[in-house]
Every structure is written in structure tokens, then in C-alpha cells.
């Protein structure tokens, strides 16, 4: 009888694995989205043409575990008969992409848009169409794992955050705990689903489906330590070539938040990609919240005791 409850032996821990998503190499083909859905047999989310650039799957969800964001940063059109006033700003929130002569061999910083430039010889302005394949961040200290009351969310032997479907009771605490909006409950079974980092493939020594399908190596998979080194080299390389905006998002802990095992190389501030600049980890303020709660409780108790005592004495006075 006892053997029935005895848990199986845990698999031996392996080096932590994760993703390094280099957005400077993403061509927005969405092969990662399709490869993910195909391998994991996830249903389509519906057919909702959104008129938002080429993004029609909108966000990560219980049935969309990879999502490619499209951010258009185009210089403002110029309607002065082909003669521009130089330095026109862009309608995007990051307008000052600069302008100037394109020189051969210069680093890639976006495309120089050679349209209706001024007759005085100034070259076009830099336009960018940023594309980023978003995914579960597999946080080193994941709020979803911390919030899960049933133990359904755990770290597997690859230190990936994994939701055990047979244990999840669909309470939804993880949904509100995740600062990236990764988790959501699906209508069909009410449970929370998210990227498993292709746990089944990893156990068979295979690369996760999205990284395998990526044609330009924008999504790279491997041991996190190695990925971080590679990513830092890459940032150095890009900055050395003049792309000063390149930085890593989530490669190390910052503020109250841990490092991410699926981290990103970005060339724009996080909000442009719909990522929080400073993600919150609910557990970090838990002690203070408990203390505040306890103190409030005590204060209320004291107040009610006081007011009860006062009432009693009043009654006595009346009586």
C-alpha cells in the first residue's frame, strides 16, 4: 500500500538549459510558432486578423507557446514633392533612429530607407521593423513555481520550469504571478499550459522544435552558461561594430527578479517588445506584505477591542 504513494526516483540533474533569442537575426518567418504547435500538437487559437503589422496571434497563451512580435519603426513619410526637411522624426515611440549617409561595410542597424530624400544629397533615414520571437522565460526563480499551491509547477532535471498536467488543478495563481503573461488557462481543460522547453525532445537528446526550425539561428538552444557567454560575446561584437543599442535582457538577476534561462538580445527598450522593464516577483515582497497584513490585523484587533471596551463602558453608563 505504501509503495503506491512512494514517488519514483527523480532523474539525475543535468546542466541547466535554455534559449538565447537574438532578435537581430530574426526574419519574422514564424517557423518557430508552427514548429512548436506541430510538435506539441497545440490547436490554432482562432482566426483573428488584427491589422497590427503581421502579428495575428497577438500574445503568448496556453496554446501559443512561441509568439513573434512585430514592431514597425518607420521614418515619417515626406510629402513635399520629394524634398525632405532633414531629421524628420518617426511616428514610433523611439523616433530618433538617426539619419545619414550609408557607407558600405557599416554594421547593420536597421535599413536605410532611400526614399524621397532631399535633393541636397542627404541619404534616407533608418527604418526598422523589429521582430522578436517571445517564449516562456524559464526564470531561475520562477514566480509561477513559487505561486503554485499544488506543486504542479516544478523545475525538471534541466532546470526548466515545467507544469505537470496531471497535478495542475487549474487554480490560476500562476497566471497572475507571471510578470510576462506567459501562462494562461485553456478553455478546453481549464489547466495552465506553457512552453515545456520541449522536455520530451530534450530527454531524447533533441533540440527543441522552435530552435531546430529557426532558419537564421535567431533562436539558439543549449546549456545556459554557454549561451550566456555566447550572448555576451555577441553583444560585444555588435557594439564593437557600432550597434550601441544592443543589450541582453534577462541574462542576469536585476532588482527583485532572477536571471532568465530563456533570455533575449534586444536593440530597443523592453517595452517596445511588450516586455516589462523591471518585472515584479510577488514573492519578493511577500514578507513585507505578511508583516503589513499582520500589523493591520493587530491594529484592527486593538481598535475593535478599544471600541468594544468603550461601548461596554458606555452601556454601563447608560444602564
Amino acid at each position, binding site marked *: 500500500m505504501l509503495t503506491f504513494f512512494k514517488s519514483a526516483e527523480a532523474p539525475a540533474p543535468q546542466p541547466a538549459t535554455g534559449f538565447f533569442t537574438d532578435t537581430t537575426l530574426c526574419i*519574422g518567418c514564424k517557423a518557430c510558432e508552427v514548429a512548436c504547435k506541430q510538435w506539441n500538437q497545440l490547436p490554432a487559437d482562432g482566426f483573428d486578423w488584427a491589422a497590427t503589422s503581421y502579428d495575428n496571434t497577438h500574445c503568448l497563451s496556453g496554446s501559443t507557446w512561441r509568439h513573434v512580435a512585430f514592431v*514597425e519603426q518607420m521614418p515619417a513619410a515626406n510629402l513635399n514633392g520629394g524634398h525632405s526637411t532633414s531629421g524628420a522624426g518617426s511616428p514610433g515611440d523611439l523616433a530618433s533612429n538617426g539619419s545619414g549617409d*550609408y557607407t558600405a561595410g557599416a554594421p547593420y542597424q536597421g535599413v536605410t530607407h*532611400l526614399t524621397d530624400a532631399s535633393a541636397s544629397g542627404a541619404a534616407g533615414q533608418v527604418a526598422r521593423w523589429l521582430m522578436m520571437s517571445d517564449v516562456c522565460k524559464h526564470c531561475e526563480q520562477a514566480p509561477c513555481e513559487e505561486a503554485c499551491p499544488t506543486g504542479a509547477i516544478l523545475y525538471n532535471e534541466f532546470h526548466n520550469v515545467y507544469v505537470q498536467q496531471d497535478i495542475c488543478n487549474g487554480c490560476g495563481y500562476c497566471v497572475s504571478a507571471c510578470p510576462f503573461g506567459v501562462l494562461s488557462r485553456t478553455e478546453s481543460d481549464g489547466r495552465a499550459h506553457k512552453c515545456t522547453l520541449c522536455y520530451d525532445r530534450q530527454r531524447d537528446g533533441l533540440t527543441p522544435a522552435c530552435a531546430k526550425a529557426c532558419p537564421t539561428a535567431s533562436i539558439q538552444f543549449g546549456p545556459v552558461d554557454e549561451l550566456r557567454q555566447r550572448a555576451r560575446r555577441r553583444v560585444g561584437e555588435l557594439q564593437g561594430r557600432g550597434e550601441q543599442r544592443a543589450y541582453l535582457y534577462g541574462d542576469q538577476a536585476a532588482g527583485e527578479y532572477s536571471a532568465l534561462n530563456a533570455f533575449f538580445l534586444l536593440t530597443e527598450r523592453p517595452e517596445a517588445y511588450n516586455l516589462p522593464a523591471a518585472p515584479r516577483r510577488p514573492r519578493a515582497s511577500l514578507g513585507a506584505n505578511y508583516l503589513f497584513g499582520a500589523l493591520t490585523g493587530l491594529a484592527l484587533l486593538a481598535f475593535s477591542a478599544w471600541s468594544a471596551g468603550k461601548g461596554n463602558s458606555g452601556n454601563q453608563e447608560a444602564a
Partner: protein
Amino acid sequence: MPGLGVTFGRGAATSFQQDLANSDCVLIMGSNMAEAHPVGFRFPMKAREKGGTLIHVDPHFSRTSAMCNLYVPIRAGTDIAFLGGVIRYVIENERWFKEYVLHYTNAATLVGAKFRDTEEDNFRGLFDGYKESSHHYEAGTKAWHYQGEPGSNRTNTPASIGAESWSERLANMDNPTPPSDPTLQHPRCVFQILKKHYSRYTPEKVAEICGCSPDAVIQVAETLCQNSGPERTSAIVYAVGWTQHTIGVQIIRAAGILQGLLGNMGRPGGGIMAMRGHASIQGSTDIPTLYNLLPGYIPQPATVRRHETLKDYLEQEKVENGVWAKFPTYMISLLKAWYGEAATKQNGFGFNWLPKIDDNYSQLPYVHKMAQGEVTGYFILGQNPAGGNPNARLARKALRELDWLVMMDWFETETASYWYKDPDGIDPKKVKTEIFFFPAAIVAEKEGSFTNTQRLVQWHDKALDPPDDCRSDSWFVYQLGVRLKALYAGSRAARDQGLLNLTWDYGRDGAATLPDGSNSRIEGEPDVSKVLREINGYHVDSREQLTGYDELKADGSTACGCWIYSGVFPSKDFNHARSRERTAGNYVDPKWAWAWPKNIRMLYNRASADPEGKPWSERKKYVWWDEEKGAWTGSDTPDFPTSKKPSYRPTSHSHGMEAIAGDAPFILKPDGRIWLFAPAGVKDGPLPAHYEPFESPVGNLLYRQQSDPAVKEYPSKLNRLSRPADPHFPIVATTYRLTEHYLSGPMSRFNSWLNELQPEMFAELSPELAAEKGIANGDWITVWNERTAIDVRALVTPRIRPLFVEGRQLHQICVPFHWGYAGERVGAIANDLTSLLTDPNVSMHEAKAFVCNIRKGKHSKRRVIAPLPFQPWRNQSEIPDTPPAAQPEGHALRPDDAPKLESRPESNARTGAPAHRRP
């Protein structure tokens, strides 16, 4: 692809995609490579990461543009003007690669005295020999030939036929060393003619035509110049954005001239990549589904030329010099492969059993004939004319005129359902066509070969049996042949002898097995490796496989199904196309599959060495002359006679390959050189000139001739065309592709995973045009022109910009062409707007540049296209023999209303291969 064929010798991409990583600059024009060829696009990305420059010149700012360093928006269809501007910059600023141009192009060759350029007669825009009454250049009167050549060919194909003879196409030359002026000063040398021809293509004029800035022309030209020469190379990438014009061949010719002047051909990181629009489209021109060619680009016999006997045919089509001089060996070996023992010397190896052409039977003229009720029946395998043809409405009308139609496809596509789903509201009772629909196997369910964009023949094995009645195309064609041969057995009629004598021995010797060792369920599947063995060719007596086309004989002792493929199956048990061996330290990977011809990955690679045979530079070393060995050597198979010394010179009496000099790398041309000026082979002029698209809101700013003078129109009620500068249709439209869908959608719109990524038909337009018309992002709009009106959603984006043409603002809209009325997601058909007209060279339409107008709101008159109850493609199925806990997670997320699937052993849930495909 005569554009490349005429300029360099072979109608195929001159290099391989992996080599784009070595480019110092890649000019992408007429191609949306990042979206249409995302996997191949990794190589330009590698070039960019190495510091190379990517340039995109295109009407539509696509994902490709976003990845490039430079983007120039131009008006659709003005590519020749832009390229002409770049050519002029290269010439005027003396930036051409002098030694390369002098030796490897025909720049120094003198043209006959009677030649007249477009500039004459007050910029008339026509070359000499134009016949106004019949809208074509007449072979007998035009004088585009080299000096001293007779100028008239043995044959004279009427203008109504799209198919030229070889001697017409290759300018059969009597003298392989035509008179030339190495100082390039003679007014009739090609270089001076070229210089004069493009002298008016100034940056300002080009900018006025294209709608870009003059600065853009200079920047692009300067970037190309800086990245060309002995130490550096630039490549050009194009696709159907260039071919689908009435001037498509000439645009590609202009690119060829530019690459010739810059010395980028046959060199690593250089060349012209023709990105093919379809799996194995290259293969289907090599071993063609075309009416005017036999396998290996051999001209189809024609009644309009003197082709009564094999002897006449070979005499008429003769080419004296270069690789084509051995043409009789290719032709007779082909006849031996097709007719086997029945092909004897006495009966001309069965030459008269071949059908001969008497008219233009190219696809588009054929559709026109069909719409007139002149065609009875039609086989369609893997094509979707009801949604994918230019003027798809006309194509549907044409299909309705058929008595019978045989369709083979994966799904019930637009073409299979046109009789009851046409958005024009056609009454099914009035459609007389009887339609036979055959379900087809998908690629994993059959074996065979693909010839991809870089001429690479790659074999693929069969993974599993197709479900139910689905069968491979080769099964269908093989079985059709078997049945037809049985039906006509014993016939004495002369017209049946070709069919009866055709070798058809592709049956299997034993049972076919699947990878898991079990026997295949499918009966009657042919052994396609036997087909490839025959294509490769063999010695008739010993049945030993040939190792290359040099072994071919004209006496009937060899058989070969396609001479350029000879070597793909060099011994009975070695299928080179199936090989997947990597070669360490050599990015050319010569043992990975096989490329025609002779496994050469980069064509004309003799040009990677200088005239003396030494590499132009260490950085761009590829193939060179090894004096010690007395042979050409390098990282690829040399595309040159292996032991021909660089110093070899022919005499004016040399014949065949003897006529090709040791410093003439373009061995298919009779003079061995790049044809900057094409003395033959192009029907609308020896040099590209800017002509407006047939439908254009502006006049021609360079010539009096408005559009291509030899274009052919097909007037009908359903195919009305706008005249130039029609005030009703001031907006230029162009069609394009998205990554998420494939062609007109017959493969992708039945797949929910792709449909959710791009669920609806839309048109992209600029915020300025939207403001002018009162359209908001996401609104329904009507797009209409002379042909029809369609309803689409508006995607308003600053990626699309108004242009300034002729000093005024001009709007362009871009429409993807992936939607139709069949499938899980439906939408308006962009091709209902495009027109049917054909260019003079390859009978190509002009879907990439036409005119239209737009307004807010839906067009009410047309029937609302609503999909019929549709059973979605079941791309989620259980993995057999696997407990529920180990099924993929998404298995639990299937919508409850999804039909329950029975477990099918032959379906593979991991690959998403469907259990059923028919609705």
C-alpha cells in the same frame, strides 16, 4: 529562362545559395527572399553578419527589406530604368572591371553596320526590323548580328509561335572569332553601343521614372562598384518579381549586363541567383512540362520549320560552336531512351513519332483558347489556375468550357470546386464539365527527386504509405500510360505508333518496402529510380550507366533521357542525387546530392581565374589552371574542358569545342563570351530598354514607344485592359507573397496552424492614401479595375510610401495573392484583378504591375464568399501505441467539437501528416 540563357548560356541560376554568404554585396530585386525563401535567406544574413551589404530595391517594404542595409522603394515595373541608371553610372565613371570585360564579354565585338538603336528617329524606342502591322521584330529584316555574319538564320519561326529554333536563339556563327576592337573605341563595338544606349539613364531621369531619389541610384551603384573587382564580388538575387512582367526577360538581361560589366560572373560571392517560385520548378524546365522544349532544352520539332525528317531537323537546328555543336548526340540519345529498340537509324530513331508544334501552346494562350471553347479536356496535377492564374476569373470561365477535367491534388482546391463555389455566383447546373478528382500523395508519401533553384538534384525517400486512395503523381502518370498503351494495342494508325513504341518499363522488380521493413500497401507504384537511371543514360549494348554527356554518341549506341542530367546516376547502384556526404573544409560540398551539369555548383567558374588562368585574387580563389598537372582545378568541378590551356586560341575555321578559346569561359555561347549585346535569342531587342508596364498611370519618359512593342494581347470581355494614364485607375498595384502561405493557398489554407498566422486577405497601403480615401486601418475596402472588383481588408502601414513620379505623387498598393474560395480560410482572389497578356519571349503575364482604384467599404454586387461547412485538416492526432499521459500536451487541448479520430496506423502525428485529407 532566356534572360540568363541568352546572356550567359544556360537558363538557370548561375551559382548556389550557400555561396551568397561569400558576397560582399547582395542586390535583391524582384525577390522577397526572406519571406519566399526564408531558409535560403540565412546565407545573405551570413554575408551581412560578415560585413557585407544587402540592398533591396522593391515597391513593397517586406521582411526582406527590413533585413537589408539599404532599401529603395521604386514604382512597380520600372526595374530596367533603375538598372539602366546603375549601368550608366558604371560606364560613365569608368568603374567596370576592365580585364574581365575585355576578355570575358563581347564588349569589343563589332556589330553589323545596319543596326539601329532605340535612340534614333527622335528616341522612337524601337530597334531596327520592327514590323508595325504585326507588332514584332521580323527575323529577315532586323540587323542585330555581329559584323561579317550573314544575319539571317536557317529557320524563320513565325511571330505567332513562342518557340524559336536553336540557330535563331544561339545566333549560329560562321566565324567564332568575330571582328573586334580591343580599344573599345569603334562606334559599332558593343561597348560604345551600350554606352550610348544608356547615356540618357541619368540618376535624375531614373528617379523621375522610378519615384526614388537620384541619390538612391547613385548610392546603390556606388555600393555595387565598391564591392566588385578582383578582391570583391557582388551577387544579384531575383525571383518572380522580375519575371512576371511583359519586360521580364529584358530586366534579367539588364542584370546580366551589369554583372558582366562589374566582372561578377562565375566567381565566388557573385553571379545571379534566380530564386525559383516552386519546388522543382527548375526540374520542370530541365525536363520540361513546356510545349516548346524537349528534355535538356532541346527544341521541340515544329511544322512551321522544315523538320520533316531527323536529318532536316538536325541540319536546321545546327549550332557550329561550343557545347551545342554536339547537339545531334543529345537528340538521338533522347530518342533512343524514349523509343528503345524501335528507334533505328532507318526510321530516324523514331523522330516522326514526336508531336510537332504549329502554334503557341504555352499555358496562358492556351487558357485563352480554352475560354473560346477550343479545348475539350484538361489534366491538372498540382496546379490551381482558378486562383493562381493571371486573370483567374477568365481561367475559371475557361475551365467551365471544358467537357472534362482531371484534377489531382491534396485537397478540393479552387480549381476542383470552381463549378459550385465561384464567387461570381455561377449556377452549377449550367456548368457542363465532368470533373474527376484524384487525391494525391504528399511528399513524405512518395520517393523521387527535386531539382531546386540551384540545379541541385536531391533524392528523397518515402517515409510512409499515403492514406486511402491517395496516390503519387508518378503512380498516376505511369498507370495512365500503361492503360493507354493497352487501349491502343495493335493499332496500325501512324499517330498511335509513338505511344505504342514508347519504352514504359518502370514497373517494380519486387515488392516495395517502407523504412520499417514492412511491405507497402500500394499496388502498381512504379520504380522511379528506374526513371532517373534512364534520364542519366546508358550504353545500349552493355546497359552500363553513362558517367556524363561527353560519352553520348549520335549513332544510336547510347540512350539518355536528358543530356544535362547525365552523371546523376553514374553506375547501376549509385544514385548520386541520394548522396548526403559532407566534405570537410569545402563549402561547395560536391558530394551532397548532384547538380547539373557535371555536378558543377557554380556555372562558368573558369571566369573565377584571369585570362592566364590565375585566380583574380587570393580572397576570391575558386577554380584555376594548374600548369604542372596541365589541368583546371579548384574547389568545384571546372565548367570548362579540363585540359584546355588558357593560351589556346581557335582559328576562324575551328568547329565545335575547338572554336572556344582558352580564355572564353561561357562555353555554351558560340563565341564563349557574355553577351552584353544579344545578337539573337531575345525577341524584343538586343539591349534592354525601359518600357512602361502595359497598364501604367504614366507615360514613357525615355522613349516614344510606351510599352513593350512585341507584347501580345488577348482581348475579351473578361480581359479588358486599361490604356496608359487612365484617369479612372491612378493607383499602381503589385502582388506579393507572405511567409505564412504558399502560392494561391492550395497547400497552406487548409492548415489551421498557418491560417491563424495570416487569416485574412488584405491590401497594404500607405497612411497618405488611406487619409485621402478616408480609410482606417482594418477597414473593408474595395479594390477594382477594368477586370473586376474585390473586397479586402486595409492594412495601413508606413512601410508603404507614396512615390513621386513625373513630379507628382503616385500611390501604390500591395496585395498578397494567397486567398481564394476553397479551404479553411477564404478571401478575395488578387488574381481576379490581374490581366492575361503575354510577353514576346516566354509568354509570361504581368501580375507584378497593373493599375486599380480603391474606396472604403465593401463592393456589394459580388456574391459573398462564405466557405461551405468545412472539416478542418486534422493536424492533431493521437500517437499510436502511446499511453494518454505520454501524448503531446496539446492533445488535451483539442476543441471539444472536433471530430474524434480513429487511430490510423499510417498517419504520423509527429509530422502532422493528416489521417484524411479530403473533406
